[in-house]
Every structure is written in structure tokens, then in C-alpha cells.
């Protein structure tokens, strides 16, 4: 591990390099490197530079507004917040997950599979494929999806259509692309009509085929660059996520499972309603994003990673055949019980996308999704906790309400927050192993962004801020004078000003 690079000694004698903000992630992040006179990295940090209190925004609102309101937290994963909030407010009307009518449960799962599919497609095809197909240090003019469309037109177009299909699933179920009201307390507000079901069935075989092709593509990219892909930004960590009762991959509802870096089980089948007993959050002075950790292991050893890599590592199987076959190949490529390669996030992400596509087909062929038993009611409660596996990882929504159904307390732990330490460690690994001692150039610095992007971070969610995307690198010498400056403007244009 690279914790020794979190805080350098004698900082006043070091050069500072800033990547501000990190591009192709959602939100506003900044990387700083402190270098000595030989360009050796002495400190590396991923900072979150803005903060907005979304929890405060929620307080004082009636609970039934939450599934719609929380979607405005993020333009990338609104459905994940919608469903996590819905699971929490189910409990406020006395409904536990097992008591949800089967039609409502399956519609929510279908909605979630659509969301994860479109989010994973966006990330891989639009944001990461330029790095993966053209190389991390390729000409900056190539590192974008338009270049992918030009040079790999079939892959680019498949990415567009996969994302579009996932959004059509969302639109059919919730009535709108965004701000939909599909999930309500205790169930869903509508089922699918036969026409809507048939419309989605028309393309699903093609979607599965493209998803399977994407898994093959990333497997080829990854395995043709071994051992580089297995080493770059790689850190051995704990992993957290939901699984089914039988240990299979679960994205909508299950028990919490945590595994150690050596594959040993730290905890399993934990009721997420008790999450406060198992997970705490630490604050550090240099960033607004918190650092969650497993209480049993403490702050130093208890941090963990979440998201596709964690889920595919943690589960014992996947209950759809093509994704299961892909999972087995994924695990077999590594000699270790757990795959720690940070770039393997991409591979795991596409296995999940394939699982989503297969699961969507299964659910579309289940008559329950056209059923009419949509809502259950129970005894009012004053506290609700909803947890879901969002595209980027485990997402916690926790609410308390008063006698008048007004939210008095809200706590959200978003996926990117759980990956905070992992992202910082990956940045340090890349800084120490790939940058240290070299003259820093934009292509070299892109390596840091590649490491961060593998996590598909949503800094907007993690900090509840909305960022713009200019990029600024400053090289400052030991006397504190700026000696070089690279600016990437918000329209993507880059210029270098030698001072």
C-alpha cells in the first residue's frame, strides 16, 4: 500500500502539480502531487473541492416526495437514488422488502437493470473506451468517444444504442426518462402494458449479443496487455457489496457481504438495516469526501472498495448463464482468490452489463410485470433504511420522519464515498510506480485520470456538487514559483503556457 504518500514531510521544499479538476468523471475533483527536486513523488491526493449538503435539502420535506426529489441529486444515476429512497420509505409505511407485491418487486428490478445497463454502457463506451482502445498516453485529440466512433464505428454505435435501450426500459416503467415516479412507498404506481413489454422485447436479443461482445472486447484488451493491466493502479483491498442468500450476485436487494484481500469472509448476510453497527465514516481535513470503513477492522485496515469489481469478486455465482460464464473466466485469469486489478473494474462492469441484459429478458418474459397488484400497506414506522447496489457500488439511504411524515434526518452514503480511499491509493500507486522521477507531461498525467476513471466516480453524488470541467496543471518549483502551466478549457481545448 501507499499510505506513506498521503502526507509528505517538509512540504515547503516540494514542487506541486495540480490536476484540477479531473475530467471525464462526474463532478469536480482535483489531484495534487508534491515532487522533490528529482521529480520523485512525495505526496499524492485526490481532493474533493466542493460540497453541498443534500441531506439538509431533504430535511423538512414529506417522505413521499423523496423518490422523486433524490433523483435530482445526480444526472447520471437518478434511478439508483430513486430506488434506494423507495426502499427506505417502504419501511416508513410498514413494508419490508419481502412483503412487496411480486409485480412491484419485479418492476423495480427491471427498472434497476435498465439503469445499471445504461450507466455501465455510458462509462465504458463513452468515457473509458478512448483510453482503452487508443492507449493511456495517446494523443489527447484521440482520447474521446468521437474518435472511437470514427475508428471503431460499430463499437461506438453499439455503445450509443446500449445506453439508449437502458433508458427506454426506464422510460417504459417510470413514464419519463427523468423525474419519473415509478416507485412509490410500498410498491409501484404502474405496471407494464403488453405493448410496452413487447416494445422492449423487440431489441433485447440484440442487446444481449452486443453486451456479450463488449465483454469479449474488454477481456481481449485486458488480457492482451497483461501484466500491465493487472498491475496499473492495482491495490489489494477489502470488498463490500450485497449478495443473494445463496451468495449469488445481487444488485437490488440482499445481505451485506465483505471479503478481505485474501478472499476470507469478513462478514456475510448482514441485514443492511444494521449498517451503522458495521460501517463508520472518517473525516479528513484535506477533502470534503468522507472515508468509510468496516468498524470491526478499524480506520487503518477497514477501508474497502465497492462497485462492479467488488461485486463480481464477492459473489459465488451469477444467475444468468452468459454472465456466469464470463465471471468464471474473469476469476480464472488471476492467480489470486480476488482480482485486485483496478483496470479490471472495466471488465467486471461489462460482465454486470451482460447480466443486466440477460435479466431484463428474463423479467420481460415474466407475466408478473404486467400484473395489477402494485402496492402494499402496513403500519407506519418512523425510520427507514434502503440499500441498493448502484452502478458504482453500494448506496445507502437512511431517513427518519416525525408524526407528520416530515423528514427530520437523512443520511446518504454514496458509492463513490466508499471508494474514496481506494481511489486515493490507486492515485498514489500510479504516482509512485509510473510517474515518479519523470518529467510530467499531459499524457503521463492522464495515467492518474485513467486510474480514477476506472472507478467511474460520481463526485457530484459524493459531494452533492455540480462541477465544470476545465483542467489545469501547474508545476511549481521548490521556491514556490510556477514554472510551467497546462490548461484544458471547459470546451476541451488545451494550451500550454511556459511561464
Amino acid at each position: 500500500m501507499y499510505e506513506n504518500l498521503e502526507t509528505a514531510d517538509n512540504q515547503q521544499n516540494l514542487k506541486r502539480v495540480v490536476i484540477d479538476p479531473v475530467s471525464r468523471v462526474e463532478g469536480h475533483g482535483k489531484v495534487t502531487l508534491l515532487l522533490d527536486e528529482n521529480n520523485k513523488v512525495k505526496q499524492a491526493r485526490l481532493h474533493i473541492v466542493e460540497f453541498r449538503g443534500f441531506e439538509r435539502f431533504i430535511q423538512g420535506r414529506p417522505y413521499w416526495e423523496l423518490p422523486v426529489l433524490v433523483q435530482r441529486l445526480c444526472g447520471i444515476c437518478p434511478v439508483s437514488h430513486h430506488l434506494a429512497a423507495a426502499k427506505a420509505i417502504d419501511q416508513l409505511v410498514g413494508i419490508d422488502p419481502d412483503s412487496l407485491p411480486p409485480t412491484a418487486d419485479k418492476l423495480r428490478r427491471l427498472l434497476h437493470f435498465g439503469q445499471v445497463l445504461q450507466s455501465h454502457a455510458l462509462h465504458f463506451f463513452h468515457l473509458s473506451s478512448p483510453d482503452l482502445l487508443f492507449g493511456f498516453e495517446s494523443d489527447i485529440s484521440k482520447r474521446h468517444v468521437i474518435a472511437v466512433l470514427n475508428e471503431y464505428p460499430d463499437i461506438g454505435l453499439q455503445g450509443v444504442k446500449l445506453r439508449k435501450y437502458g433508458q427506454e426500459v426506464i422510460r417504459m416503467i417510470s413514464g419519463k426518462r427523468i423525474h419519473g415516479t415509478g416507485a412509490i412507498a410500498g410498491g409501484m404506481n404502474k405496471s407494464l402494458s403488453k405493448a410496452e413489454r413487447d416494445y422492449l422485447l423487440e431489441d433485447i436479443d440484440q442487446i444481449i449479443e452486443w453486451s456479450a461482445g463488449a465483454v469479449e472486447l474488454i477481456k481481449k484488451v485486458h488480457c492482451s496487455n497483461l501484466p500491465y493491466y493487472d498491475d496499473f493502479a492495482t491495490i489489494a483491498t477489502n470488498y463490500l457489496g450485497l449478495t443473494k442468500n445463496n451468495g449469488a450476485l445481487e444488485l437490488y436487494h440482499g445481505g451485506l457481504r465483505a471479503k478481505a484481500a485474501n478472499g476470507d469472509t469478513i462478514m456475510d448476510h448482514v441485514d443492511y438495516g444494521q449498517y451503522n453497527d458495521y460501517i463508520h465514516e472518517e473525516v479528513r481535513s484535506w477533502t470534503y469526501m468522507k472515508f468509510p470503513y468496516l468498524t470491526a477492522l478499524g480506520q487503518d485496515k477497514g477501508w474497502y472498495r465497492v462497485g462492479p469489481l467488488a461485486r463480481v469478486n464477492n459473489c459465488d455465482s451469477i444467475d444468468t448463464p452468459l454472465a456466469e460464464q464470463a465471471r468464471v473466466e474473469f476469476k480464472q485469469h488471476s492467480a489470486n482468490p480476488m482480482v485486485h486489478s483496478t483496470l479490471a473494474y472495466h471488465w467486471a462492469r461489462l460482465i454486470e452489463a451482460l447480466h443486466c441484459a440477460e435479466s431484463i429478458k428474463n423479467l420481460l418474459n415474466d407475466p408478473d410485470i404486467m400484473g395489477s397488484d402494485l402496492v402494499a400497506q402496513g403500519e407506519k414506522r418512523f425510520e427507514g433504511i434502503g440499500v441498493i447496489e448502484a452502478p458504482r457500488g453500494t448506496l445507502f439511504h437512511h431517513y427518519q420522519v416525525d408524526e407528520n411524515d416530515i423528514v427530520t434526518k437523512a443520511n446518504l452514503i454514496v458509492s463513490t464515498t466508499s471508494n474514496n480511499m481506494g481511489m486515493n491509493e490507486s492515485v498514489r500507486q500510479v504516482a509512485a510506480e509510473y510517474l515518479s522521477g519523470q518529467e510530467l507531461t499531459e499524457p503521463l498525467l492522464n495515467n492518474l485520470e485513467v486510474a480514477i476513471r476506472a472507478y467511474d466516480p460520481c463526485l457530484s453524488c459524493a459531494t452533492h456538487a455540480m462541477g465544470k470541467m476545465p483542467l489545469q496543471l501547474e508545476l511549481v518549483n521548490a521556491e514556490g514559483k510556477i514554472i510551467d502551466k497546462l490548461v484544458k478549457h471547459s470546451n476541451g481545448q488545451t494550451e500550454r503556457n511556459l511561464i
Partner: protein
Amino acid sequence: MHKPVLIFAYGNLSRGDDALGPLLLEYFKDKIDPNNIEILSDFQLQIEHALDLENRQLVLFIDASVACETAFNFTKLLALKDKSYTTHAMTPSAVLQVYQDIKKQAPPPCFLLSIQGISFELGEDLSQQAQINLQLAIQFTENLLTNNQINFWTQQIENNIT
């Protein structure tokens, strides 16, 4: 079946003046000719929105803008590889470029109505100035939709007095 005219607003209702576009759509929701005009809204533009341009005769994008120096601004869009697609939020010109790249044909005539916004903080209502700007933009759009012909829309660029 795609309707010939698309009005596409983007922005987040809970981020102050970023709501200008969606609020303008909200006003027109029940006033437009549903046989000829489709309205769509999203948080931000992304690559797949290129597919929403298929089989259209006219497209109007509506967005809040801090760069707008008047209450609103009406322009014709050109496909442009401006690299905004390196982020989660693309410009409308970049969406047109994607359309051109994947369809191998020119996009339909597309226009952008930018409405001046001042403050975009989470949980804020529209600023006072944005409320005024919204009313002016609504009047402009009402006039625009009286004649859904490219010549008329192009003429409004010249008449765009704010």
C-alpha cells in the same frame, strides 16, 4: 413515429436557474400541437440524444446559460467537434456532430434558445432575474411555434431583440 418538431430542454429542477429549460417546457406542455411537436427533457445532454434527432424537420434545444449576456439568445446550431464529449455533459453542437458521425448524414436544422441564468445552487428557486428572463423566453417561443418553418425560425435570429 417521430414528430416533425422536437423541443428538447435540459437542466436540473433543483439547481436554481438550471431549471429554466425544463420550466419553459412545463409551460408549453399542454399548449403545443401534440401531433406535430414532441417535447423531451433531461438533466444534461449525452451522446445518445443524437438518436432523438432522427426524422425531425426542426429541433429546438433550450438551456440555461451563465454566458448569455441578454435575457435570452436564439442561435442556429452547427455540428461541432468541440470535445465537450470528454465529460458527462455535452454541448448541443457536439450532439449534432455525433448524429453526423453515426448517421453519416447532416443533422436536421437545429436551434438553441439560451436563457440567461444567474445562480445554480442546489435547492435554490429561480433567481428573480431568471424569472423575468423565463417570461421573455416564453413569449419568444410562443411566437416561434406559430410557424414551424426553418425560414421563419432563421428570421427570428435576426429579429432576436431582447
